[in-house]
């Protein structure tokens, strides 16, 4: 009697290490996609995050630093700091170059700081995408 065909799918090996992929995607925006061979997507992510970060710098947006006198200020500053940090190499190079723009007030500076955070948040989305590609949840 022939054996019944197995319906359980075999576990699929990850494309590359998901953790390494996510780390590369964090340090170099779009680098995770490049690492996985998705060069076109990697280039688009790199240019998009760079554009958001560049607009923030052009508007002299201040970076967030953890700390603050009350709880709400601390939560906002830590959230903003994580957003800044998520830009990876753009943040590190900018800080290494001595960028220390004070919060000058006004809408230009305010928008600038938001764009610096948005750059990091967009990179987090790209990091998650690269992680999912590495684990073969996506193509």
């Amino acid at each position: 009697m022939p054996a019944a065909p197995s319906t359980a799918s075999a576990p699929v090996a990850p494309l590359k290490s998901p953790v390494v992929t996510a780390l590369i995607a964090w340090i170099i925006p779009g680098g995770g996609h490049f690492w996985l061979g998705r060069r076109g997507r990697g280039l688009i992510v790199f240019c998009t995050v760079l554009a958001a970060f560049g607009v923030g710098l052009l508007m002299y947006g201040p970076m967030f630093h953890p700390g603050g006198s009350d709880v709400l200020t601390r939560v906002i500053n830590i959230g903003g700091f994580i957003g800044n940090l998520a830009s990876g190499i753009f943040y590190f190079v900018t800080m290494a170059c001595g960028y220390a723009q004070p919060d000058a007030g006004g809408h230009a500076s305010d928008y600038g700081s938001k764009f610096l955070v948005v750059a990091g948040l967009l990179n987090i989305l790209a990091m998650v995408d690269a992680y999912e590609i590495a684990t073969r949840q996506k193509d």
Partner: protein
Amino acid sequence: MPVHFSHFEMSLVFALLASIILGLVTKRTDRDRVRYGAYCFGCFMVALFGIGWVMHFLHG
């Protein structure tokens, strides 16, 4: 000197960049990515002009 963009220009740039990434990470085929990115950008524009007109009528 910092570059000064208007609120509208800033919103436009934000909508464009966010739409590109949203389209890129959410869909599986290039065609769907472009369509979803365009859809997101359209939604941002509708919200931008809609909220703009609401604020115009509220403030007089």
